[in-house]
């Protein structure tokens, strides 16, 4: 699907840390009983991962799974695998009360990396980004400046910010303001 383009087509900006749009990402909203056997099996089959605990992200061989709320997960896969994963999950959850929706095109994803990444995020979200409070495989839904967003920590110390596609430019712009050189906080 060469005609599918991400919101900002992979734009990047480097200040004292780096901000880049990661490009298209497959994302699936799954709502259901997270404690059920059926859900555990469906998630395992589709992603290879376990159902994540409160505000955690798990990873399997096919996809990652993020805890969004007590009855909602976000499955993150390659963009071209999204539809297939939706079908797989729907099949696996047949008979259970659940909702599986492809939301890949409704989102934009940014990676924030480099020294001071935590400071960049702390300029925009009312969240404690201290090492001991927020680490790899943690996810936090909050706001970035004036719009809702979710942030999770990667193993390599970088962070990913997910927001709605319509505000991708806004989120990129506020991240750009925050990484501008001279704005180092040297706190985290």
């Amino acid at each position, binding site marked *: *699907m060469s*005609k*599918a*383009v*991400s*919101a900002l087509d992979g734009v990047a900006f480097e200040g004292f840390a780096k901000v880049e749009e990661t490009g*298209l990402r497959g994302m699936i*909203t799954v*709502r*259901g009983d997270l404690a059920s056997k059926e859900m555990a099996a469906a998630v395992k089959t589709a992603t290879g991962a376990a159902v994540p605990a409160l505000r955690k992200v798990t990873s399997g061989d096919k996809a990652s799974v993020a805890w969004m709320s007590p*009855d909602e997960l976000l499955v993150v896969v390659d963009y071209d695998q999204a539809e297939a994963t939706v079908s797989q999950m729907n099949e696996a959850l047949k008979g259970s*009360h*659940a*909702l599986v*929706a*492809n*939301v*890949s*095109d*409704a*989102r934009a994803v940014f990676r924030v990396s480099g020294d001071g990444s935590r*400071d960049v995020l*702390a*300029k*925009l*979200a*009312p*969240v*404690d980004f*201290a090492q001991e*409070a927020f680490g790899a495989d943690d996810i936090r839904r909050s706001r970035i*400046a*004036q*719009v809702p967003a979710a942030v999770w920590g990667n193993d390599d110390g970088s962070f990913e910010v997910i927001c*709605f*596609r*319509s*505000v*991708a*430019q*806004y989120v990129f*712009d*506020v991240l750009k*303001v*925050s990484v*501008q*050189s*001279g*704005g*180092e*906080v040297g*706190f985290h």
Partner: protein
Amino acid sequence: MSTRLTTGGRLLNKAKQVTFSFNGKQFTGFEGDTLASALLANDQMMMGRSFKYHRPRGVVASGAEEPNALVNMGQGGKFEPNQRATTTELFDGLTCTSQNHWPSLEFDVGVVNNYVARALPAGFYYKTFMAPAAAWKHVFEPIVRHSAGLGKAPKDRDADRYEHFYAFFDVVVVGGGVAGLMAAKAAGQAGAKVLLMEQTAHWGGRAPVDGGKVDGVKVDDFIDATVAELEAMDNVTLRNRMMGAGVYDHGYILGYERLTDHAPLLDGPRHRLWRIRAKQIVTATGAIERPLSFAGNDIPGVMLASAMRDYIVNYGTSSGDRVVVVANNDDAYRTAFTLKIHGLEVPVILDARPNGGGALADAAREQGFRVENGKGIAKVKGGKRVTGVAICAQAGEGAVLEEIACDAVAMSGGWSPVVHLWSHCGGKLIWDEAQAHFRPDPDRAPTSHDGNAFVVTAGSASGPLKLGDVLVDGQKAGEVAAEAAGFAVTSAEAPKGEVHDEAPLVPCWMMPQGAGPKLRMKAWLDYQNDVKVSDVKLAAQEGYESVEHTKRYTTLGMATDQGKLSNINGLAVLSDALNQPIPATGTTTFRPPYTPISMGAIAGEARDEVFQPLRRTTIHDWHEANGAFFEPVGHWRRPYCFPRGRESHADAVKREINQTRESVGLLDASTLGKIIVKGPNAGKFLNMMYTNMMSTLKVGKCRYGLMCNENGFLMDDGVVARIDEDTFLCHTTTGGAERIHGWMEDWLQCEWWDWQVYTANVTEQYAQIAVVGPNARKVIEKLGGEMDVSKEGLAFMEWKDGKIGDFDARAYRISFSGELSYEIAVPASQGRAFWDALLEAGAEFNIMPYGTEALHVMRAEKGFIMIGDETDGTVIPQDLNMQWAISKKKEDFLGKRAQMRDHMASEDRWKLAGFETEDGSVIPDGAYIVDHGTNANGQRNTQGRVTSTYYSPTLDRGIAMGLIHGGMKRLGDVVEFNKVDGSTVKAKVVDPVFYDKDGEKQNV
């Protein structure tokens, strides 16, 4: 004169000279100077004029409490008024001007206010403006407007950048003096995550100036060692040039960090506002010296005794050659000693206490100072500069005993703890008789979410003033805070500070005690707001007994001062006038910020392009590139129309409508809300949400639905499609997507939580494009793909998934224009490509996009309602003749009960009808239908109002919908709509469907 000394100046780097300008004059200073110290070093004692009387004013203080030395800093995009010279660090190239004068600081016309001061007493404005109303417009307002405001408002865009920063701590210590350092150390040692902030660039507060020893070493060295210890602790963050601006609910505290004010060439944000959550806050904010109220206490050269000491020790700057010291306490003697050590003359120390001072006074006498007990200043002589003082007995009425020539006066009326941050969030105060000040009452601290105290004071901010006591109190505060934040504390012994025996102060609220009206009129309480002893007395006399009323009547302690210098003296004078003790008068409310913070810091990153989020559809760039004129719809920007060349908006709308009705048009409808509702109870749930019966909708079909709130009023509408047995897709209005999703979740989470229904807001997953007009089908068919979009293949009010071209599409056969119409949703990532493909395929039909205005006109031509036009939060579906959309079979739906209420069922409600003007003109937006007679206010009675009114290109005349008493029963009546010019326009009541009444065009 004031000048640079060869001695002193511990904060200066004398190897580095810097140049700056004040009122266009070039001066030099040293790195490490403040603007105030550098001006003093250049004998520029007069730094401004007062706000109301334009009296010459010099610097009084050396820190944040400075009321007089406010300057306009910088130029152009760097201009900012009301900057304190005392807290402005000097840098090379600094430019500033003084305020409140015209044409110049030296010669000011406004000083005439001073000569008529007797005619400008407290409440002058309130009293004067009782005069005739006409005087307001032509006399008072121009004068007030000209003279109002402190400093000048900036005219240019702020050239700097600003940011916010969210941070979380166990303990935040405000104030980097010795108490703050001790508190931070104690809390840090207990393991707490600590932030210590200091508003100046230096640690240690005023201890290095006041001197003394800690555990046998000089206090300066003790400070350095403690700062080094703190810097070595991983769990402690030290930040200077950062002020605790305000303390708020639940441990919220604002730290105002000034990053480049002292070095504007540095790259980076100018200010950073730290939005901090702290489990515990320690306010180690010190104390502020009080002025004494004697006649002429505002003449340049009269300064706080401690400030004069600061200028010598910190900045090597004298404030005068011959200084009279006047005080009611021992501390001021330190200033006399400092002056002498640095070679300046002190002709006399006036100690207002009948029995004089203690050990320090004895030492002064031993050193040969002339010390006069029980004496005070009757009057300061001089205009733009002190030339001498007249001495009197403090106990008397001001009979002059002696005149002494001098060029400066150092005054001290005792010290008041800085209680601002303690008080911001409700901390209470108690009156300390011995020190004659209000201090925090530790038993009535501000409380947090858990009901426990979250602010503790340390050092002088708690009351104690002596070094030894301050160290002990600081350490204790740190321990208390750490423990309250959940850390185990092993109490250590505080370092021992030198403690001198000092004789108690004797309150001195007026000097001399029996000063008559003439002296009181020249004794200033609040320098910044020009409030004198006589003003407060007058307020009391006129019945302003509450301190809060007196504050507003006289302006005492208002604005940026927030009572830093004026508070206690003013309260004492008021109490005296009311003949009651000071605690009975109480204090005014201290409000944040402690000193003003920049508007830029408050805004943070939210300016220019990112002032507020803009939502863009995936086709937004195309719209922009093709000249769209946008209108805001929520945070979205939607094209209103697409003018070509020099075409007017009206002409563009007309062209877009004609093209769509005649051939084919395109609308970017991506912004419409789309919510998936799924589950075994989804049908039952939607039956509650909509007035219609949704559970009977067949899979593959669409139904238009109305949503009401529990008041029965219409709140949203849209087309619902049944995707499968368990799944519906609900369209909402553009502005309604988040609101309606939240509304659904509200009912599911809080009322019917046992129903098996899930929702998901998938609004942005799809780009949705309406292909509209007689040639719509041909365009889609031209794209190819497997989807059958023929009349039979996809009938009106049906939807279908499939390939259009090679796009994954879902097509809905729905129409909001009355034409043959398909709304086609594709994944948003393919939205722009699909738009381009439609434009290409439609080229032969002259396809063109249309905007929201064409959309509105076309729906009005069809008599379709629009949420927000026909509805305004007080309109029920029955008002819009939409009984057809209200199920009679359902026992319940949201709004049903409300619609049964008398007023809702009344025949008297205004109901929908169409209107056509007799002359074909367009009825003005918002017009009312006038009726016979007038109401109680003499206004014409009304019988209805217009809700949608447009020029219809299709009919080439004005059309309108509106609500009218009697509704469609009035068919054929001629009514009058009012116009802005007072006239009316006649219109006939008609059927609101103006175009294709039988709906043949959309169903082909």
